[in-house]
């Protein structure tokens, strides 16, 4: 799509306050739990008591006899298909004869109050025959391991075969092997899952709530109910965060609420407590990663052999796609002539894992970026110089054999962060700190390339509806949602720029499956590029109808029309007789003339290719590049790491909303810092070892360093005004930059996340092998 010169923009690239900010700070915004319907009941879920067991008997008699209980449903009451899943449809809405993880549900209750519903759920009697708990994905891969599903425990195996690694290792002067691992983490959206399901007219169902991917969820609910899609309506409430987290878990909860609502013929509301949210919602995959890498004496990469085992938990969910992105990006942003990559997702009885901001990249970024520092140390090169000798450049061929035809800016990003913080000097000075020094300084860098949007995962298209009202205000809606990332503002800005109006004239309306076409999921940081392009398409279709009217009124040709700041005028060179027309006036006149003022913009991404056997192909239609730098202080007495300064550089093609883009980076680094230092959804024998934020530790504002953000703008011909992707790249690089900085400070490398006090001080993590004293005392006091 053609682009205007940067200084021609009246809105793109400016600081625009979020369009939803007043609603959110005044409390006017309605989140899932804020919806009430007359006569509504409250739903509760009865989870399994064992992570892995055969269900022998479910007895609801006692629970059902309680006053105020209106319905109790089990798997036997599912009207349609009992299993859902976008990739592999094997996840039960309610378990019938087998439970596979501790968040599996066996029964649901609708009652007059939340308290009655929860109490009744606890009174359902379930007989189990416990099965062995498979909690280690490596053990689960063994042929003789207990099978979690009918087939092998291996859910997915992706490969890359490029060149000949044996030749590559033979040509190398140094070959090193390293193992890295990452932990499962929780999305920790501030709003737990919440829905209200109402039986509708015509026998349909309407569900409003905290849903991220409306169309996936609608397919799941319709299938569970045995309904056609046009009778299954999902409306997105204002979302209190998602980060990839409100997909499959919401398919389950929406289906359960809908079943209860239809069973009793009344609205049913289901709102998760934080404890239940932690228990049943999926996590980011923990990875075990083995890298063997060969390099010449002069520091040129020759070969990489990569084996990655991802813990999929009990169900496939998005594991096949998450691990596919890892497969494509597993070498990092480097030219490696010979590559052999095997990535497995493996079923266990742990909490299932699926999409989370990064989608398979934070894990491999941690491994490759740690590895690059380790190689540089071995070669006595500084890590910046070593990276610069190997990075992807314009026209480079990736590990999957894709020739990069856009501007490749990973070197630009690396150099930007390094220059900003005097990386090379500080790196060398830190190595020479004396061992007597109790607080040691460290500096570390990391960089990445990232495929934009869905790539070869599947259909990649999105729609935006632009509707000009007769007073010239505009209603915009989109099948990709605002979940807090700022999509409503970004899309409004693109529409405003295109129509020559100000953003205050635009009202962005949350998505509704009945009114807006299926645009695929709001994932893969694809909203700006996909919905942005669709919005431009929609606006252009409108302008094709409106401009002829304007040109007649102003007495000039269409090409001479200048639409800006809510008015239309003819080109300035005809200033002597220049006339002006308000956009609102134009809208009114178009309406009077019977010209349609509603348009549906659509954008389909360019095709991608992928060969499953060799892992070769043009995996994504374009890529983004970024680099991070962290400066830390490590307390050598306690192992405490304090991140004191952070620099992020991202090539995002074009900044649409500057304050929104900064917000993405600040938030991304906060999540990345938590991933690097604090967060761990620990499970023991398939049971969570924690249940709330007292023990699941997120970074606080006090943990955040001084931050610098550098935006690199190399407009991509495929993006709206050149814009691409930022949300996930902003999050994937902080942990390895911090880990590299800690290694620079201490001289010891931590190859396992998170870098807890114990890992940094002792080199190993310590596991609590006893119950909490507080738990014991509570039991005693009861």
């Amino acid at each position, binding site marked *: 799509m053609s682009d205007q010169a940067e200084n021609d923009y009246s809105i793109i690239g400016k600081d625009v306050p979020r369009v939803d900010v007043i609603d959110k700070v005044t409390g006017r915004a309605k989140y899932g739990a804020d919806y009430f319907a007359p006569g509504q009941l409250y739903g509760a879920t009865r989870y399994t008591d064992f992570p892995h067991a055969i269900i022998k008997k479910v007895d609801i008699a006692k629970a059902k006899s309680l006053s105020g209980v209106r319905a109790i449903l089990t798997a036997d009451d599912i009207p349609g298909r009992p299993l859902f899943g976008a990739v592999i449809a094997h996840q039960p809405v309610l378990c019938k004869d087998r439970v596979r993880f501790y968040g599996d549900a066996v029964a649901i209750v609708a009652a007059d109050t*939340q*308290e009655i519903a*929860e*109490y009744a759920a606890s009174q359902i009697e379930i007989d189990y025959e416990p099965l062995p708990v498979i909690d280690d994905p490596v053990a689960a891969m063994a042929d003789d391991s207990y099978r979690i599903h009918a087939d092998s425990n291996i859910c997915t195996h992706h490969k890359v075969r490029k060149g000949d690694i044996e030749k590559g290792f033979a040509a190398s002067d140094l070959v090193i092997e390293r193992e890295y691992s990452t932990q499962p983490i929780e999305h920790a959206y501030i709003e737990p899952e919440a829905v209200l399901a109402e039986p509708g007219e015509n026998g349909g169902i309407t569900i409003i709530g905290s849903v991220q991917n409306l169309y996936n969820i609608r397919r799941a609910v319709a299938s569970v109910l045995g309904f056609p899609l046009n009778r299954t309506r999902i409306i997105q409430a204002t979302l209190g965060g998602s980060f990839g987290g409100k997909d499959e878990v919401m398919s389950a909860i929406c289906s359960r609420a809908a079943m209860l609502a239809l069973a009793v013929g009344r609205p049913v509301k289901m709102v998760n*407590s934080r*404890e239940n949210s932690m228990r049943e919602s999926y996590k980011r995959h923990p990875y075990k990663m083995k890298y063997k890498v060969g390099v010449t004496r002069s520091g040129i990469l020759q070969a990489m052999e990569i084996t990655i085992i991802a813990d999929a938990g009990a169900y496939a969910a998005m594991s096949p796609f998450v691990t596919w992105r890892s497969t494509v990006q597993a070498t990092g942003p480097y030219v490696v002539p010979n590559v052999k990559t095997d990535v497995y997702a493996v079923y266990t009885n742990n909490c299932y894992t699926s999409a989370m901001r990064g989608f398979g990249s934070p894990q491999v970024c941690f491994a490759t970026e740690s590895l690059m520092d380790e190689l540089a140390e071995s070669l006595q090169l500084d890590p910046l110089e070593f990276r610069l000798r190997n990075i992807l450049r314009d026209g480079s061929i990736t590990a999957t054999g894709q020739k990069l035809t856009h501007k490749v800016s990973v070197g630009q990003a690396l150099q930007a962060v390094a220059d900003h913080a005097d990386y090379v000097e500080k790196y060398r000075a830190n190595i020479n700190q004396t061992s007597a020094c*109790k607080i040691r300084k460290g500096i570390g860098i990391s960089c990445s390339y990232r495929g934009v949007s869905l790539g070869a995962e599947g259909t990649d298209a999105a729609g935006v509806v632009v509707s000009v009202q007769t007073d010239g205000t505009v209603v915009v809606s989109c099948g990709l949602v605002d979940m807090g990332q700022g999509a409503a503002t970004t899309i409004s800005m693109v529409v405003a720029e295109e129509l020559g109006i100000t953003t205050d004239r635009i009202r962005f309306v949350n998505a509704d499956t009945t009114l807006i076409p299926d645009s695929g999921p709001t994932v893969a940081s694809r909203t700006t590029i996909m919905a942005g392009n669709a919005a431009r398409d929609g606006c252009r279709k409108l302008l094709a109808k409106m401009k002829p009217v304007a040109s007649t009124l102003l007495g000039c040709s269409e090409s001479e029309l200048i639409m800006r700041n809510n008015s239309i005028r003819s080109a300035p060179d005809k200033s002597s007789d220049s006339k002006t027309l308000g956009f609102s006036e134009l809208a009114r006149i178009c309406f009077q003339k019977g010209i349609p003022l509603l348009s549906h913009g659509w954008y389909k991404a360019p095709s991608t290719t992928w060969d499953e056997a060799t892992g070769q192909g043009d995996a994504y239609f374009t890529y983004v590049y970024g680099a991070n730098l962290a400066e830390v202080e490590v307390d050598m*007495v*306690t*192992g*405490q790491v*304090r991140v004191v300064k952070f620099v992020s550089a991202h090539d995002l093609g074009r900044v649409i909303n500057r304050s929104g883009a900064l917000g993405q980076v600040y938030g991304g680094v906060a999540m990345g810092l938590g991933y690097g*230092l*604090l967060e761990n959804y620990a499970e023991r024998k398939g049971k969570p070892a924690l*249940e*709330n934020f*007292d023990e699941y*530790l997120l*970074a*606080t*504002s*006090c*943990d955040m360093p001084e931050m610098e953000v550098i935006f690199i703008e190399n407009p991509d011909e495929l993006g709206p005004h050149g814009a691409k992707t930022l949300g996930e790249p902003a999050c994937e690089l902080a942990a390895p930059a911090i880990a590299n900085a800690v290694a620079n400070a201490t001289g010891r490398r931590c190859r396992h996340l998170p870098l*807890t*006090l*114990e890992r940094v*001080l*002792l080199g190993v993590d*310590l*596991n*609590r*092998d*006893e119950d909490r*004293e*507080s*738990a014991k*005392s*509570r039991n005693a*006091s*009861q």
Partner: protein
Amino acid sequence: MINVIQYIRPRNIDEAIERMAADELVPIAGGTDLIPQLRRGRSCRLLDIGRLTLGFIEDIGDWIEVGAATSHAEIARSKLIGKCLPLLGRACGLIGSAQIRNRGTIGGNIANASPCADSVPALLIYDAELKLLSRSGERRIKLAEFISGPYRTNRRPDELIVSILCRKNIPTTGNAFIKLGRRQAVNISRMSIAAIIEMGADRIIGSARLAASSVFPVSSRMPEVERMLYGATATPELFRIAGEVAAETMVAKSGRRWSTPYKEPVLIGLTERALTEAADL
């Protein structure tokens, strides 16, 4: 689901102790420990002390008296506390988050008797005593004797903690309070240490007081360390040895637990750091 069997909110102390005598009630003030316990399945009858005017800080001669319902935030910002009991002010200022400090109270922190309670090491340094009230009258007990084990105290079910008294004039040349958490705020302590040193210009230590939490089953002073410091000259070597004595004492009293490989070197290092800071070495 929170299981509160009964909730009463008496208007005055007399009514409160009458109710306490009649029923087994758990006093609740800020609820920052109790509410999470209720969420996790504990059920109880609650007596809300919110109307009992137990939020005060008073100078009563040799002692500072702090009402049981005084919030951590009030203690942290009190000028009187800052002047007379600076370690307590600092400890309370580091508890949890701003919200927890606004709700949580000193009496609750003591009554919950968590081995990692932040206020307790500071209170122990100041010879804290508790004033308890019941229908049978007032009872005064040393804090060190009141906490009997992890999450256990010697409070009789009919007794209400009314106030905490701290000795005002502990000889002090310098002091230190160190709290170690996993992050920079909103921490459950991994360890905290309070220290006071009194010494002359010759650096000969007249007296030293040291207390720690998350080190022993019950937060306590470290007499073994205090004794070895008495009369010695403050040097880095002395404080290093003091740290080693502290760690030996920890292992002797707490045994070897999952966390000992970490806590042993850290207690050595932080004891050394606290004493160094207190002695201004």
